[in-house]
């Protein structure tokens, strides 16, 4: 059994997506042995909130509960918190996704405080995009792992998953360092982050209990990370932690 802690529904505007249908997602999950996945709809990330909400609920129902849901908080939109609350009152939503790079707001900005308060109150994890500072993509500076320290430290009961484990080399090191300092900080392996030795490095630095399998489907193909985990030079029990035990723990029985 595999639990995928970082998936999407819908398409990215940036490139051609061959098939983002729920039916195909479920077939892919069946083929790879992924029992459940937690998904943030890309329409919600890109400001088409109502469409994303409607399709998220449909996907959850159509999948018989195998596709669980993140709601998305946008700190630049004043009404965002009430929309997030509406989601958390809806069956299937088990976490909150934030994306400082898409929303152009540093992760330690004051405007994020309300969503951390809500996550603490509702006892749900926060999944965030995290990445290395990049010349090619300057918006990644909003999501450098160090930026999450302020709220991770202030809300020790809220589980924070650093999606993509910091994205690239310096980001990976910063993500591991943050996860080492804070018991509530985890990393996931999603995205096109394929450095040789990455899985081994993270397990050595922070322990396999803090690394979650994530794919970034429908953006990235889950086979790319699954091959890395299956073949990693880490103990067998560590692979079990990464592939499903940790997600079970972080989502407190929702998965």
């Amino acid at each position, binding site marked *: 059994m595999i639990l995928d802690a970082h998936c999407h529904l819908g398409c990215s505007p940036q*490139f051609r*997506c*061959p*098939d983002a249908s729920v039916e195909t997602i479920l077939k892919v999950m069946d083929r790879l042995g992924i029992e459940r996945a937690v998904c943030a709809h890309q329409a919600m990330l890109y400001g088409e909130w109502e469409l994303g909400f409607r399709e998220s609920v449909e996907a959850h129902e159509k999948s018989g509960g195998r596709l669980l849901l993140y709601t998305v908080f946008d700190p630049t939109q004043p009404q965002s918190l009430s929309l997030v609350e509406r989601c958390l009152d809806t069956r299937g939503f088990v976490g909150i996704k934030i994306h400082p790079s898409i929303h152009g707001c540093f992760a330690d900005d004051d405007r994020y405080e309300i969503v951390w308060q809500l996550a603490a109150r509702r006892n749900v994890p926060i999944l965030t995009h995290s990445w290395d500072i990049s010349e090619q993509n300057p918006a990644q500076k909003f999501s450098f792992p160090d930026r999450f320290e302020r709220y991770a430290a202030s809300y020790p009961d809220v589980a924070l998953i650093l999606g993509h484990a910091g994205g690239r*080399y310096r980001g990976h090191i910063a993500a591991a360092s943050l996860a080492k300092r804070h018991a509530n900080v985890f990393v996931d392996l999603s995205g*096109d982050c394929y450095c*040789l030795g990455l899985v081994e490095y993270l397990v050595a630095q922070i322990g396999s209990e803090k690394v979650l399998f994530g794919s970034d489907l429908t953006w990235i*193909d889950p086979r*790319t990370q699954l091959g890395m985990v299956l073949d990693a030079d880490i103990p067998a029990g560590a692979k079990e932690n990464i592939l499903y035990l940790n997600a079970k723990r972080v989502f407190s029985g929702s998965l």
Partner: protein
Amino acid sequence: MSGALEQRILEYRERRDALEFFDLNCWLGAPLEPAFGTFEGLSALKNGLRRYGVRRAIVSHTMGVRYDAETGNRELLEAIRGDDSLFASAIAVPEMGDKQPWLGVLQGWIASRVRVVRLFPAAHNFSLADGRILKLLETMQGARLPLLVWHTQTSWRDIARVCSDFPELRVIVEGTGRKLFYDNRTYYSLLEQFQNLHLETHGVTNYLGLDDLVGRFGSSRFLFGSVFPHLDPNSAIMPIVEGVFSEEDKRNIAHDNLERLIAEVRWS
């Protein structure tokens, strides 16, 4: 570990090893980007490849990108000399054609196991429209020697022009940095337009990306590459091993297509 997971790992490794991967994109030299894994020297590199089920490889040298193409080529050809499992990818710059005709340069390289030529127009500050480069491409076309170029080192417009002007030249595109698949709206059109355009697959990691390409265009123009030892080969291997296409397509991408391309290289 649960028996099911243990079995899954075993089956994946067996299926991977059975495909006898031939890697188009393997590197000697210090990494161009900071990396966790390094394999110093040729024997460490070969042991590393074997560990990931890769039987043969075309090797490039980072020194030829970062410092000097000619020095990097010399280091590379010296390193792989006498090794039957490895071939070389030489890096060309325009002035190499000044010292002797390109035909002589290419014949020397081919005799030293070069089977692919790389160009880095952005890093080495030249244009694919440079007259000496056009001569090189014409000579490569005659020798059936494939061109390998990063999408981040030139423009797709220039790649299309090369495909059009040299229809018998095998043009292979890959690239580091921004993943290749972000340009898929462009390369779908170009794959329809140019039968000599090929893609190395390590950057085709978008969801269902490789399955869709093979479904639309067949498997004959897609070639496995890993960027080992800087990237984990499994990230490029599992989408092939567990691809939603035929076993023949898997063999084509894993090794047959590359074998066919290098078998076509003319010696004289």
